[in-house]
């Protein structure tokens, strides 16, 4: 995403094909994973810390259940929720892996996501926070680069939240417990992993809501088009 001159339609290339494909695949998969995950959670709507945890142990969170309009399927079926969840999960995990490798190879990570030295200057970060709070979105060439808050949230999601949700998901599998017994301990045990899986899912929902809000504020047509066709109209400089 270097400086570009707009073409005859007044747009510039913004998102690579790999980013666009991964984005929409994730939109569909995360939707299925979240709603079927809530369906699975309804089978035992209590969360614990540690290796074990069942009804007679102390739970740190206990709810009645998630309503049917949020779960897949709407009518409680642990078997169907699990089929949806376990079918979508491997696609989601391998898509992330391929996206990471591809983005490493095409230098998307190094060029667009990695912090630059001046990104992390406290003054710059503070300026960015103020700009966000005032909803002053970048214009011209600056709109082609991710700002520091954007970078932080994309790095946080791609390299922390998504791997966390995949690995905690894997540790809940008794088969993986035999294949990779070392995987569960860093999370503090299977029930801790289940709690972290749940927390990460809601952290992703929070990311999604802010993401949608930012798209709406920054110009939804231009933003959505850039994620479909890759082409983006540079916002005009403010006078």
């Amino acid at each position: 995403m270097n400086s570009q001159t707009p073409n005859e339609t007044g747009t510039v290339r913004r998102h690579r094909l790999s980013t666009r494909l991964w984005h929409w695949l994730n939109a569909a998969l995360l939707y299925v994973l979240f709603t079927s995950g809530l369906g699975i959670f309804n089978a035992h709507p209590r969360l614990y810390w540690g290796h074990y945890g069942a009804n007679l142990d102390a739970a740190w969170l206990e709810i009645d259940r998630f309503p049917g309009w949020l779960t897949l399927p709407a009518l409680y079926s642990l078997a169907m929720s699990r089929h949806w969840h376990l079918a979508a999960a491997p696609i989601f995990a391998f898509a992330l892996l391929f996206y990471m490798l591809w983005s490493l190879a095409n230098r998307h990570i190094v060029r667009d996501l990695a912090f630059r030295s001046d990104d992390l200057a406290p003054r710059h970060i503070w300026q960015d926070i103020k700009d966000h709070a005032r909803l002053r979105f970048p214009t011209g060439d600056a709109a082609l680069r991710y700002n520091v808050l954007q970078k932080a949230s994309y790095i946080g999601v791609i390299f922390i939240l998504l791997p966390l949700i995949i690995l905690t998901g894997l540790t809940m599998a008794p088969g993986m417990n035999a294949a990779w017994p070392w995987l569960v301990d860093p999370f503090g045990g299977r029930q801790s992993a289940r709690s972290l899986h749940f927390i990460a899912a809601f952290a992703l929902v929070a990311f999604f809501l802010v993401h949608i809000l930012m798209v709406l504020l920054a110009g939804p047509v231009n933003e959505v088009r850039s994620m479909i066709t890759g082409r983006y109209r540079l916002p005009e400089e403010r006078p």
Partner: protein
Amino acid sequence: MILTRRTLLLGATATLAGCDRLGRNESVREALFSAENFHRWAQRSLMARDALAQEFRPDQISPIFRANGTANPNTPAYKALWRGGFADWRLPVTGLVTRPLSLSLAQLQAMPHRTQITRHDCVEGWSAIGKWRGVPLKTILEAAGLRDSARYLVFRCADDMGGGRSYYESIDLFDAFHPQTILAYALNDRPLTVANGAPLRLRVERQLGYKQAKYLMGIEAVASLDGIGKGKGGYWEDYAGYDWYAGI
């Protein structure tokens, strides 16, 4: 673009309803159910045949081991066995074996045993850690002489699930000969209670709770699961759509 809470809710509900409809489509169901094959293949590619499920220290045992499913079979036949301290109970080992067996509890308890402190993971999401003692299934299968054509072990149970159907489960040879696959008669150094499957239950530690058949009444070696129940290999597999491979 005006997005109200109402349109968002309607949108979310409509999309979910769409997924729900998809979930009832036969070929979509087939695709979703086939994920089980991927998980079985992937997990077994990643694990050695004898890879052990994690074992724990005595101080990590759950204070109370939650009992789930049938709490008491309560059939006249089971009650009679229980009243007699299971002295009249026998475990037939039949099917594709060269020497069919009929084992009493005393005979099983006299055989070499294995003790393991493992985590029981229910399909619902909870876990309990308990100390099991029992006879490795491998020992019994070797005594019975499994025929080459045998591919699965089917476990028949005493609990009536309604409609005259008793609980049943099955595993394949990959898990049947695993060192941690035992027929357990003791939990936390005491004889199995009725709630936890007295007098004998299966432990197959690399799979979920519904595979750990309780109240064992017989083991049958078979070549295929086709003739068992509705053919999916277990009660919940046949009647609720659970995966036969419960490694995840």
